């Protein structure tokens, strides 16, 4: 096998190269030639093609993502911002939390189990690379129609993959979402969030500085996994008849990852690393070019020293391989021996593959011959940036004009009762325990709240009971109707969920799942969602710390609903002061906080009863969200409320049903003056929550809400073993439970 060296490339400028097959456009290929002043070698072409792919370079999204930095609210909490492996926020008492959500959508469609499993593995390594111990994961998921045969293939595989990897790794899975909609039929969304905790002084950044320092690759051997995965999988649309190209699927090994975690935390503890980076998409191409460009010097790598699982791999393939469970560290020569010792103790293969130089170039050799000679920044950061054309979709006016107000509302109490049962048993509103019971939610012993609670909560310090809470939300139906408002509603809901559990919202991560950026309508949705989210973060004072963009989520011409998934992290000083969702005590008073309007556009009711999507999503009022959150956090800290549940899709009846079933107590509800029973039960007006107040706290709680100007309405009492809407209908809890809990086992069990 002859190697395409830099010398050979300079001598043979006219050799045809497979740039198009690697996903590059002609002008991008020409740009590479300009940068290098010659044609790229095969290895260089491999590196540029993966690093300049949509997935790694954010070339279509970059111009819009800038707003997250530019509009970011000043926040004392932010320790490390966008651009590192993950953002880091100060959570007090000397602790910092790092969290991030990423997508693994396309691999999970091809091979659901391994796709979802390696999604967990990848995000866990991102968190680990910041110096933190990963403490929990969450999974926002979207699937096609619940009764579609392919959903039966994809969902059980994804759920088993998340459970298998996360459970083996010993990380609790504390929340997430499962949403069904036919728009995700050929494009399920598998997003994964991980949160880690560390002391402030333990933060580590990805950079390679100090000439003479060693570049150490450690973890699993490199194999043919996912070659071209990044550029081919994440940046190309599937053909209508399914995946045709099948690069080697990445297979994860959670036990190897566990060793990697413990090994990495030990080298951190002994302060042995200068810089560190995980290997994810684009593998060594990404790790070497990003580490080198972030550092002060250059880097030289002997690629033939990389330990291989398959000895026949070419240098191009080694550079592009996405083999899992690998990390790359920069270590001073004095510390190298100790670093290797620790790796050996954990049975982790570690190899010095190169060193930092005082030049400015990234040079890679293969058995002594130079195959890569580039300025690392041109690979890592100077990829193309596109101002893609935007166009408000021509169908949007008609969609927004198709208001949900014209839909037939239940004519009598019997119909109302039947629609409540239909709603709480619909796949999107039904209990998700069939899925979440497959995840270990309590391993490590610090889980305070987990699914189906409003947010997942983890105790950080066993002495002081400091904790963090996390929620992820995103409503593609709202975003389809209005992407600007839809993104804000996603943030508002996650923010509200964190506050409902008693934690103060601090910071945001987002996973923006959209269709093809080459479609101006999709690009407009993307731009609007970014603008909406950045504006809302500024108003709420919660900066975006990092996240991920997943484009090309479409089958043929049909894009998914725009689906910005937003994760919010909050902090609670004492987890004993948390507010759970369950109604636990008879006689406690139920209060509805916020304003209820006739808002049914994009609602669960319109989907379940009428299979309708049209009109406008609920109105966004961020000042109200902020006030509501303050009240919920204060009431929780001061012991004024015993339960709280945010109101979102499905409206009040959905929230009350969940809280009643969780607590095993019924409720008597009274329809407030000025509202129809229908609007009271099903409206999805934002900025609302239902709380259970002990009678002894009633006056104090009302006074607080009154003084702060938050509308509060007494809507009932915790009582009995039915949900009774006075003057309308009575539903036994047993009947509700049967309806709510049987749906998923029947579909997938």
């Amino acid at each position, binding site marked *: 096998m002859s190697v395409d060296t830099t010398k050979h490339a300079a001598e043979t400028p006219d050799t045809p190269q497979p740039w198009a097959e690697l996903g590059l456009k002609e002008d991008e290929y020409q740009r590479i030639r300009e940068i290098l002043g010659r044609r790229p070698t095969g290895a260089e072409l491999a590196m540029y093609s993966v690093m300049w792919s949509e997935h790694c370079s954010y070339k279509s999204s970059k111009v819009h993502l800038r707003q997250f930095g530019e509009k970011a609210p000043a926040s004392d909490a932010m320790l490390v911002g966008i651009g590192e492996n993950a953002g880091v926020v100060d959570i007090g008492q000397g602790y910092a939390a790092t969290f991030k959500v990423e997508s693994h959508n396309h691999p999970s469609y*091809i091979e659901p189990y391994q796709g979802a499993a390696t999604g967990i593995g990848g995000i866990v390594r991102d968190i680990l690379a910041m110096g933190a111990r990963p403490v929990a994961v969450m999974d926002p998921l979207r699937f096609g129609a619940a009764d579609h045969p392919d959903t039966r293939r994809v969902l059980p595989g994804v759920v088993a993959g998340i459970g298998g990897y996360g459970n083996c790794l010993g990380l609790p899975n504390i929340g997430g979402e499962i949403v069904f909609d036919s728009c995700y039929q050929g494009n399920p969304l598998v997003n994964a969030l991980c949160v880690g905790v560390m002391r402030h002084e333990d933060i580590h950044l990805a950079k390679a500085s100090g000439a003479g320092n060693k570049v150490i690759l450690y973890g699993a051997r490199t194999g*043919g996994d996912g070659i071209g995965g990044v550029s081919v999988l994440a940046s190309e649309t599937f053909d209508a008849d399914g995946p045709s190209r099948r690069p080697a699927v990445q297979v994860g090994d959670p036990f190897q990852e566990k060793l990697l975690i413990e090994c990495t935390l030990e080298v951190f503890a002994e302060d042995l690393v200068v810089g560190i980076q995980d290997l994810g998409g684009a593998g060594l191409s990404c790790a070497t070019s990003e580490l080198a460009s972030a550092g002060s010097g250059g880097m030289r790598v002997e690629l033939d020293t990389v330990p291989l699982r*398959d000895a026949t791999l070419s240098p191009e393939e080694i550079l592009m391989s996405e083999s899992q469970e690998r990390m790359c560290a920069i270590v001073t020569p004095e510390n190298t021996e100790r670093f290797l010792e620790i790796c050996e103790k954990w*049975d982790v293969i570690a190899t010095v593959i190169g060193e930092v130089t005082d030049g400015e170039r990234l040079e890679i050799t293969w058995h002594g011959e130079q195959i890569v000679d580039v300025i690392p920044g041109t690979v890592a950061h100077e990829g193309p940036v596109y101002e893609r054309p935007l166009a408000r979709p021509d169908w949007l006016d008609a969609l927004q004009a198709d208001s949900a107000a014209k839909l037939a509302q239940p004519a009598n109490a019997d119909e109302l009762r039947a629609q409540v049962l239909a709603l709480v048993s619909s796949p999107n509103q039904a209990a998700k325990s069939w899925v979440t019971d497959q995840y270990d939610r309590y391993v490590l012993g610090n889980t305070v709240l987990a699914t189906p609670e409003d947010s997942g909560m983890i105790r950080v310090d066993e002495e002081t009971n400091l904790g963090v809470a996390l929620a992820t939300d995103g409503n593609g139906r709202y975003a389809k109707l209005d992407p600007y408002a839809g993104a804000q509603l996603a943030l508002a809901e996650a923010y509200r969920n964190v506050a409902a559990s008693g934690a103060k919202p601090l910071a945001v991560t987002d996973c923006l799942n959209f269709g093809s950026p080459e479609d101006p309508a999709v690009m407009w949705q993307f731009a609007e969602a970014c603008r909406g989210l950045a504006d809302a973060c500024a108003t709420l004072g919660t900066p975006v710390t990092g996240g991920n963009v997943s484009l090309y989520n479409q089958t043929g011409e049909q894009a998914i609903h725009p689906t910005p998934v937003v994760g919010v992290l909050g902090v609670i000083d004492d987890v004993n002061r948390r507010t759970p969702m369950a109604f636990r005590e008879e006689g406690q008073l139920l209060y509805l906080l916020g304003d209820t309007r006739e808002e049914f556009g994009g609602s669960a009711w319109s989907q379940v009863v009428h299979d309708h999507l049209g009109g406008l999503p609920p109105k966004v009022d961020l000042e109200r969200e902020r006030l509501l959150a303050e009240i919920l956090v204060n009431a929780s800290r001061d012991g004024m409320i015993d339960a709280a549940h945010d109101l979102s899709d499905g409206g009040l009846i959905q929230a009350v049903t969940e809280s009643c079933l969780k607590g095993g107590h019924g409720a008597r509800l009274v329809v407030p003056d000025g509202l129809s029973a229908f609007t009271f039960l099903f409206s999805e007006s934002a900025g609302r929550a239902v709380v259970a107040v002990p009678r002894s706290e009633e006056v104090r709680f009302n006074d607080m809400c009154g003084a702060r100007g938050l509308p509060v309405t007494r809507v009932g009492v915790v009582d009995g073993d039915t949900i009774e809407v006075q003057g309308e209908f009575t539903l036994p809890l047993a009947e509700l439970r049967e309806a709510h809990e049987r749906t998923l086992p029947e579909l997938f069990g």
Partner: protein
Amino acid sequence: MARVVVDVMLKPEILDPQGQAVQRALPRLGFEGIADVRQGKRFELEVEGPVDDAALARIRELAESFLANTVIEDFTVRVEESAAGATAPTGAAR
């Protein structure tokens, strides 16, 4: 009754954590000289009636759609003549 054996193996380029775990354990247990281990699955199908081309085609179909995950695994199908009774039952010594 004829027996058809379907062997399912991970494709060569796919990571095999189980095989690797076995391989790592061998030297610890004093077994030297094994360079690599790949672990797979073997299915033994007792076929009613003749094992003709039609039966084998059906078995290939069931292997492809059910026994193997062809995204990450390869399989082979072979007929084991007069196998019934020839193999001692395994696991009887427990």
